[in-house]
């Protein structure tokens, strides 16, 4: 186990974590402000990836594909919120689960209808297809480095927005106590629609950026959605800072766990057991962490709500 391998996996974990953050940021605000479980969040991620692949395929430019995907998905998000999601805010959580679960079905099939059954290729820009030397014997994908940079940039932007602007203050107020925010005259519904659109755009960004790495296919939303929920539970519902910390934590544990746990286990357990349990242990440990937080500190690491 060399240092460069550890660094490589850590960077992979950071990269995955930052993409998870893009998804979790929108999700945590939806949950925090409107107390709504939105399972269709993963579908926005999928739609973004498909749009990016299609536009990039047509224009030949990856970044134009990404930009169009984000813009279009943001609009789709706004339309979705204004029509299908709004009646669900006053319903109980299980009705929200049912409705958004149905939306997943519709979205998956809709994507198949529009884009076909084939998994569209999404290639990173040619300029980034090579590797960069990060150390004496570590070469790391240039594309992944850019993904990290974009993710970190968005995180910084969100930090500025949430903590240093008036709009951000409204968002924090709404996430902390919606009733009080309303009473203070903050137009929570309109703010929320805008937020939802931004969240959708962030999903699309994550989908587009991860597309070259994870493959664009129907159902790609479901697996990342569940991880996004883990992130917001650990981080604290309604807290963007919590989403960032939680996302990086989950991303690193998942990636490094998968890479190193099988070997670590081999040192202690016989080969057969280590081979069996090793890879799964990384995933299991993430959910164990989620359960532990829910049990001992249900409000999460950075509670937003009073």
């Amino acid at each position, binding site marked *: 186990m060399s240092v460069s391998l550890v660094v490589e996996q850590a960077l992979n974990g950071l990269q995955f974590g930052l993409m998870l953050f893009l998804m979790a940021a929108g999700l945590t605000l939806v949950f925090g402000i409107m107390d709504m*479980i939105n*399972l269709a969040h993963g579908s926005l991620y999928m739609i973004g990836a498909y749009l990016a692949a299609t536009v990039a395929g047509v224009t030949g430019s990856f970044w134009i594909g990404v930009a169009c995907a984000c813009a279009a998905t943001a609009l789709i998000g706004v339309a979705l919120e204004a029509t*299908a999601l709004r*009646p*669900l805010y006053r*319903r109980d*959580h*299980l*009705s929200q*689960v*049912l*409705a958004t*679960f*149905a*939306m*997943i*079905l*519709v979205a*998956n*099939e*809709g994507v*198949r*209808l529009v884009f076909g059954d084939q998994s569209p290729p999404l290639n990173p820009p040619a300029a980034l297809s090579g590797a960069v030397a990060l150390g004496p014997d570590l070469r790391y994908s240039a594309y992944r480095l850019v993904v990290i940079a974009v993710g970190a940039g968005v995180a910084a932007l969100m930090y500025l927005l949430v903590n240093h602007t008036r709009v951000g203050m409204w968002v924090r107020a709404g996430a902390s106590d919606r009733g009080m925010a309303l009473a203070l005259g903050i137009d929570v519904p309109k703010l929320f629609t805008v937020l939802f659109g931004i969240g959708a755009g962030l999903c699309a960004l994550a989908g587009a950026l991860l597309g070259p790495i994870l493959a664009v296919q129907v159902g790609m939303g*479901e697996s990342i959605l*569940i991880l996004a*929920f*883990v992130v917001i*539970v650990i981080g604290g519902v309604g807290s963007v800072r919590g989403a960032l910390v939680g996302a990086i934590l989950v991303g690193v544990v998942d990636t490094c766990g998968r890479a190193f746990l099988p070997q670590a286990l081999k040192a202690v357990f016989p080969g*057969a057991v280590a*081979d*069996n*349990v*090793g*890879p*799964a*242990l990384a*995933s*299991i440990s993430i*959910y*164990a962490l*989620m*359960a532990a937080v*829910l*049990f001992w500190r*249900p409000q999460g690491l950075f509670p937003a709500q009073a």
Partner: protein
Amino acid sequence: MTARARRLLAIGAVLAAVGFPLVAMRFDLGFYVGFVNRVMIFALAATSLNLALGFCGLASFGHAAFVGVGAYTVAILAEHAAHGSLFGVIPGTTSAWIAWPAAAATSGVVAALIGAICLRTRGIHFIMITLAFAQMLYFFTVSLKTYGGDDGLNLAHRSDVGLGVRLADDTHFYYVVLALLCAALYLMGRLVRSRFGRAIVGIRENEVRMEAIGFPVFQYKWVCFAIAGALAGIAGALLANHNAFVSPNALHWTQSGMLLVMVLVGGRESLFGGVLGAATLLGLEEVFSAWTTHWQLPVGAILLALVYLAPRGIAGLFGREPMA
């Protein structure tokens, strides 16, 4: 709908179910016997969830895991009947009389262990923590390379029942499943009217007051959750038999989501909510997939419509059960 009308309808449904295979064979629709089998198995699974969710208010988002544990119990026991033994000690078996109760027992114990932790939380946290444990079980089954891992595990044949019953025959299997489903519904009907049933309904309605009148609320939730898990285990045993196959997919969170959808669509708080929901969801799937490969779209759209238009599920459209 009056209680009498409801009872007549239930009897009618059972009679129709009993006569169905005979009619299907007559008109060369044998395929549909397998389909109704599948509906009944999921009806049983959904009914077990309804016990926890509809009657006790426990919104478990991990119930498919208990179904999966039951299915794997049967499959693993069958695997070791052919060779080897479980943990090197326990011999395998293909006898339904041992494997199916074992499935129920294993699921019940797993539910009891998970419940001991999860039931200390409430509301959205409970929903999430049950999801977390179900995911842990899912990844655990993926890691079981000796039992197929991701690829799943085949059963050489369906369980042995003896007494002249051959489960390999779809019609025989149908009647066994029907009998178990009816028995489960009958027992649940009695349970709901019993002291225990009143207690769990009370807990659903007002947990604080239940404590204040002297009920050890946690214990009752726990027992209810374990029973629901055990019942799910039986559904799992039947599922393993139906497909002659188990895979980690049966424990995936989307399967738990589907069970929740069935209960909510069918109408929680109704004894037949699970049956109605399974029949509706799988029926819609069957009808639309005959028409188009994109059947998920109209089915999803109909489910959406149901959420907005029938907030209390299909059973809710027919008026409330007297034992709400």
